[in-house]
């Protein structure tokens, strides 16, 4: 399952749980008014556990996701193994030094811009983002990726860059290893 779908399901679950909590609380109000002092007292006792629980959730999420961030600091492959593709964005097209690469090969996209900010995003054949990086004038951002599935990938701009932003499309062909 693409990571985006997993994220979507997590969000649905969170919305259902949190929404149910608010609806339950709103409906509970019909039963009152109860004396606030005992509720306040019990609430403060619960809040300590709530605080620890929320903090633990945050720490676990932080520790679990940190090693997977896209920044090159966490993803640098051996330079000898990587195929370098130079990418330049300009209003409103992409220029790639090559548009065909073999599968299962480490690739480094060295991305920049000739004019304004663009966002170099690679979509698989199903339309899911597999990786992205900003293309900023005056800077080179390196995006590392290894394509395991051969096929045609679509490149789109995800940073509003003027009137024909949506037309800034290109493609990348990933061939079977050795083929």
């Amino acid at each position, binding site marked *: 399952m693409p*990571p*985006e779908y997993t*994220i*979507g399901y997590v*969000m649905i679950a*969170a919305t259902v749980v*949190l*929404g149910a909590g*608010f609806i339950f*609380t709103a409906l*509970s*109000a019909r*039963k*009152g*008014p109860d004396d*606030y002092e005992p*509720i*306040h007292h019990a*609430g403060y006792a619960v*809040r300590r556990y*709530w*605080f620890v629980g*929320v903090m633990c959730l*945050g720490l676990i*999420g*932080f520790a679990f*996701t*940190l090693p997977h*961030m*896209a*920044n*090159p600091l966490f993803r640098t492959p051996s330079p000898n193994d990587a195929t370098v593709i130079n990418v330049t964005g300009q*209003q*409103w097209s992409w220029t790639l030094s090559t548009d065909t690469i073999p599968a299962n090969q480490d690739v480094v996209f060295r991305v920049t811009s000739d*004019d*304004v*900010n663009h*966002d170099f*995003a690679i979509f698989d054949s199903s*339309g*899911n*983002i597999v990786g*992205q*990086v*900003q293309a*900023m*004038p*005056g*800077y*080179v*951002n390196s995006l590392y990726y290894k394509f395991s599935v051969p096929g045609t990938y679509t490149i789109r701009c*995800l*940073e*509003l*860059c*003027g*009137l*024909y*932003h*949506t037309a800034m499309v290109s493609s990348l062909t990933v061939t079977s290893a050795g083929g």
Partner: protein
Amino acid sequence: MATPTSIRPPIAPPEWSPAENEAARRMTVVWVATGGVLLAGLALVGLLLRLIQSTGVLSDHWFYALLTLHGAGMVAVTLMALAMTVWALLRNELPLRNSVSVIMYALTLLSGVLVIVATLAGKFGTGWTFLYPLPEHPGPIAGWNTGWTYLYLIAVALLALAFAVWGFEILHAGIKRFGNPGRMFGLDIVTGRTKPGDPNTTNPTIIAAGVMAVEGIATVIPGAVVIILMIISNADPSVKFPALVIKELIYFSGHMLVNFDIYLGAAIAYAVLPVYAKRAWPAAKTLIVAWWVIGVLIILPYWHHLYMDFAQPAGLDIIGQAASYASALPSVVVTIFGAVLIVYRSGIRWSPAPLFIFAGFAGWTIGGTGALIDATPALNEYLHNTLWVPGHFHTYMALGAVMFLLGGVYHATPLLTGRPLSERIGSIGARFILVGGWIVVGTFFTSGALSIPRRYAYVPIPRFADAATVGLAGACIAGVGVVLIAGDLLRVYVPSMRSAPPPTPAPVVAAAEDLGQ
């Protein structure tokens, strides 16, 4: 050692003359009426954007101009409307000068006019974040003349100035009322010298407003720098500035401005929800410390907007993630949890004011969850600049901050105009807005999880079609609620601008009824 007697005695709450009261009342009425009309209009512009994406009824040129108007307008109007609702709620506790309200109104109105002209007449279409150097570099087929860029930049500066003026006046009035900043921000309560809830101490609304005031003033400095640099560069495009540095400055200020909205909403909730739940929400030690923590942590998460700029040092990404997660703690553990306790088995009657406020807490919490997911660098790679982003910010802005605002307005209207807004229209309108609004944000989140880009005038991706149709339907449902409530707002407020019925505070009416009069 300090003793209670060593504390400077509090200056009494302001006692306004009838003429001062009437002038302030009229000014607040003007603020509410203007804000209501603009918010409703901008919400309908949002509906139009969804219509363009679904049907292509207007050109790309119009789409980006309207997108910029909708974004900039909503940020500006929501911010100032929330700030002035807080102002109105605090006016009986702090000596807030009406002349300052007039100045802020003039600055805000001028800012709004400039944005409207730049976008509708000039088709300025960079999105509200005006990322450098796009405003001066519209491209080979230019969407706008760069002369309009000046108008937009000046409009942003005027808005930041208006909010800074608000901040200065809140601090000035707070320090005047309490004698020193420490007591305004609850230091005497935290150190145990004064008990929370004492009528002479600060309260949660004052503390929240005070923290936002400090941050608002702090935001003006980088904001002013970026505006000046961009004006220079627009005048002479051969003058180049580092794009990453400018982006940092824009997102520092932009992130702060949007965060002010939700925190000012919380300030309103502190004042309104207890009235209807009939339960106190004093400035307890934990709440005060939570706001001090927010005051520090609000500055740091903005780096999460630059995760995909790998030129930014990875250490800042890590700080951005840690600060984003940490900044949620005070809100989730103190304010949102506190609201749930206040409501739980309270017997509260769900009239529009508390209904909007409590709905705002749901929008804040769920929208915040979506924001935290996006603030995770490993996940941001899949969500950055997709419709997930408008998904989470519409949830905590439209279904969070604006709900707090409406709750505050429904609460304050009888005090301002002498008569309430229609409870029936408010309740029906709220249901339309909540049902339609949650459908809209649901389609945003779903589209984001399906990797649909944001800010696309036309989305050349077939699987977006269903989400666009459902989203449009949701926006139409919410639009009915917006029109109903805006109409009722004008019905009550417009006559109140022309004539001056003496305000009839609800407690006075209740007291009279108790006496059988």
